[in-house]
């Protein structure tokens, strides 16, 4: 598959968060990490490493771009479409830049009972995020300043301490709407 077809399918529109992430470039470090992941699977099953490589890409570059899909496919000796089908399936993989701090609020029953929808509303109000811009394909809404983005997640396996959320890789429990301010203060816009 040529790059242009890929780009049509993986559009990756610019978002206010784009400025916080470097453009995709596979440096030695990324390559070395990829080689290590690949070594964890049988030699004829390199494809197994696809999620591990994509996580590294997303962690560093914010989202999965068409270019990065080409790189992953090359690393694993598979057609890019095989990577695309993975990227488009998993809710944990993004195709456009989130904010610098990406917030995932648990939406599922126990957290909803504890007030996670109220927390979501409060966080959107404080960060000026308009969730109407989110769609099924692209469930992430980014704040105008690009510092924050938000989406609902399904049960984060801490139902006894809801409402819970993840901010990038940090887990926060027992955050009712009244504590939304406190939570955001840990992730200020000038940091």
């Amino acid at each position: 598959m040529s790059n242009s077809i890929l780009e049509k399918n993986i559009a990756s529109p610019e978002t206010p968060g784009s400025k916080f992430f470097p453009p995709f470039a596979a440096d030695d470090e990324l390559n070395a990490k990829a080689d290590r992941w690949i070594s964890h699977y049988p030699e004829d099953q390199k494809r197994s490493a696809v999620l591990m490589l994509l996580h590294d890409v997303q962690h560093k570059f914010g989202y999965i771009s068409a270019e990065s899909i080409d790189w992953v496919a090359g690393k694993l000796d598979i057609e890019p479409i095989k990577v695309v089908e993975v990227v488009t399936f998993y809710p944990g993989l993004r195709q456009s830049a989130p904010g610098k701090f990406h917030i995932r609020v648990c939406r599922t029953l126990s957290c909803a009972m504890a007030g996670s929808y109220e927390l979501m509303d409060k966080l959107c109000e404080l960060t000026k995020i308009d969730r109407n811009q989110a769609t099924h394909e692209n469930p992430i809404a980014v704040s105008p300043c690009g510092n924050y983005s938000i989406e609902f997640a399904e049960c984060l396996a801490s139902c006894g301490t809801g409402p819970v959320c993840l901010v990038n890789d940090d887990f926060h429990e027992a955050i009712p709407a009244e504590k939304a301010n406190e939570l955001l203060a840990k992730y200020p816009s000038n940091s």
Partner: protein
Amino acid sequence: MSIQYKEGKEPLAQEHRLIFRNIDRSDWDPSMERALQDGYYEQMKKALTMEPKAITDEVKKSGLRGRGGAGFPTGVKWGFIPPNNTKPVYLICNCDESEPGTFKDRYIVHQDPHQLLEGMIISAFAVGAHVAYIYIREEFPAAAHIIEKAIAECHEKGFLGKNIQGSGFDLEIHIHRGAAAYICGEETGLIESLEGKRPYPRIKPPYFPAALGLYMAPTIVNNVESLCHVKHILEMGGDEYAKLGVARNTGTRILCVSGDVKKPGYFEVEVGKVTMRELLYDMCGGPKDGREFKAVIPGGSSSKILRCDETFKIGRGDDAKDLDFWDIQMDFDTLAACGSMAGSGGVIVLDDSRKISWVLNNINHFYAHESCGQCTPCREGNGWMKKVSDRIASGKGTPNDIDTLESIAYQIDGRTICAFGEASSWPVEAIIAKYRDELLAETSEANVVKSAEQLEREKFLQPV
């Protein structure tokens, strides 16, 4: 020597802690050094001197049933590897923990990774696996680092790698991260995901993982908690372990209580030794002030809801008896006899402040979002159930909607590739069966949407 726990996190008197013994200890950390001080890896050393089959026999004797959802006997599952097998065998630890209401594996992998690793080394030796994977959900990034560190520590000590402790046994354990899809918890979906594909569950038969699993080789998939139990079974001996709990429901298990109770939390108890009353009143402090318990979802959101004012007829013939909701023992067989299941141990409690249509709608949103989309009844059915329950919950439903919902649910279960079909339709079936009146009361004839033609036609009809 008594163990010191963090303040407010002390185990209750009703608990019996094996797996969670070191969770929330004030003098604990996830390092190898700390684990060794507590006698970790002694059972592994013992296991490596045993015959692999003898370990499987101990696990069979222990009566251990899987803690991931289905409650299948672990030793029996291990025995399904074809005896004449020549392919490599794989062991996979299922750490996807995504069933709503379940929060137990989280604490093991964050606080006590070495317990899991020791359990896995013993289990891998027993089933003859030289490569094992821990499939961990993406939403546990910290745990992924903790386990990786623990694996590295095992290599330093010679507990992993080639010729472990001079036994001639080789084993590598690798971590594999998911990407926020519930269906990766289903074991064949998990295997597809590990192979680098979309996690589409496989058709069983023929794809029983123990015979045709990862890379079409025999594969044992076990839950985190199940694998941890193996260490304790070896330590106590299968027979001794089987004395914990009740007949056919042996050992301990972790119950996770969330929702409308005063003190939600996790409790490790002997299986079947605690009743619903003890759990919700004595251990969780009862209902919130001014509230009454309404219903309980006893084994993760996929299990059928139980009303707190129900009585169940259980047993057959001379053994038949009435069982009050509050006297239900929290074990696999009793909950199954009550028409629900013990599932993953996630107990979700609802009080009288909860509208059942809202609860149903929340659950439907989950399953509509998580269906993998392979089977038409599941993909379309869950989408429609969500739309219909959206309408009911927003007060725009008609009485017919309840029947529509019910009919969709019954067209899903039993007609799909994987058990997600049942997981998503059972909650709807049970909620409608038990709360039809309440749901009906929220709908109105006046909401019926009629086409222009229908309205035109009705002008000429006699009013009923």
